[in-house]
């Protein structure tokens, strides 16, 4: 019995170890058009370096990001989701960023309960704060590196490697 049990266990473990060695987190970053996309743009033009796997999606306002977008990203295998909006009282649409912050705080709690804790981050910054954007992106990247791959993705790669 123990032999039968141990055999299939080693395979995913090996696959896991392998995937951890070659693990490159995929981070989906929703940037609002008026502030944080500007910050990311400025980071690019001033030649600051940030992790290559942070993929930016431009949205009109951080308030546009529906929890559905976040859940979908995780379902499709994103290791982390980063949402950035304008500073408080500086939102182009008056209060979209505050709505987004409240919403994402609540969603983060729910995600933690199902086992995706620490994979969602929300930050506020202005268009001139390129260094803050880079700092947020790289610290979040490190955090995801520690957490390991998205459990949903690990399932898929484990099945494929067998």
């Amino acid at each position, binding site marked *: 019995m123990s032999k039968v049990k141990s055999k299939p266990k080693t395979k995913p473990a090996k696959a896991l170890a392998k995937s951890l060695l070659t693990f490159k987190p995929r981070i989906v970053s929703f940037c609002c058009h008026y502030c944080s996309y500007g910050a990311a743009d400025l980071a690019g033009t001033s030649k600051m370096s940030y992790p290559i796997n942070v993929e930016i999606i431009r949205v009109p306002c951080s308030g546009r990001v*529906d*929890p*559905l977008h976040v*859940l979908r990203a995780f379902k499709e295998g994103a290791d982390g989701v980063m949402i950035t909006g304008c500073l408080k009282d500086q939102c182009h649409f008056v209060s979209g960023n505050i709505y987004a912050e*409240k*919403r994402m705080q*609540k969603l983060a709690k*729910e995600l933690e309960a*199902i086992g995706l804790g620490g994979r969602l981050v929300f930050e506020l910054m202005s268009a001139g704060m390129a260094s803050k954007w880079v700092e947020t992106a790289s610290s979040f990247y490190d955090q995801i590196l520690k957490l390991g791959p998205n459990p949903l993705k690990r*399932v898929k790669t484990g099945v494929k490697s067998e």
Partner: protein
Amino acid sequence: MTVRIATMGMAGCSGCHIALLDTGVELLNLLKDVELVYSYPIVDAKNPIPPNIDVALIEGSIRTNHDKEMAKAMRKQAKFVIAFGACSAHGGVNGLANTFDAQEGVEYVYHKTLLMAQKQVPSEHVPQILPENLRLSDVVKVDFIIPGCPPHPDEIAQIITTLLAGETPKLSSKSICDECPLERLTEPPKQLRRIHEIPEQGICLLSQGFLCMGPATRAGCGAECTRRLMPCTGCRGPSETVWDQGIVMLDALAAMEKDEITNFKLSRLAGTFARYTYASSKLDNLRKGLKKK
């Protein structure tokens, strides 16, 4: 020609069957054209299920492998299967069990609760518990749902009469707020209020700070609860335009909460916002994916 109807109960409280009896005079009128061929509160038969059933009303969620087999057996015999009530349609209150591990739950019930004298999990002559609480449509094809916990007697009677006339019944696609007579204020509430506090007459409960699930819930019950100043708990499941009852409500609350509600302290929102729909929510689907190995 009489129409052969069967009813069946899974993991549920039989409340939907009581609601069926509660149709009263309507039921007597219906019984002229209807033959009740199989019904677990009345008939003491388990399997075999009689053949050629026209309409099957299945109550309760799928919790054990016995439930699963019975649902499949019923589907084979029935032409039209209706998920009867919130448990069957959306997973129901039972669906909140999905926030825990099934075996842990069994251990808890048989070892830690005071009433269990034996202190051991029964293994003989009982069906095996499934790791997840499933709704009916996860197991078999469902033709129609009657939502509600329990469904409204008038609605049950109306749906059955529509079916007898050979037409397809329709559920309302609006939300509870469209039926609710209370007046909505533009000002968001300053504080959340608990259910035991007494609300003001004629003003929207959500505006007063009560967690009312009306905006995300399917209409059709006539807003019976909010009319009597009782906050909606969302037993009728999401309305057609709502993709996930719990998270849409969370969204709505975030928009309402612009000016800092100071006493908002809920550790988890699932029990309040997805009380009847957790087993069919997007969040739970994601969790099921995480759990599979």
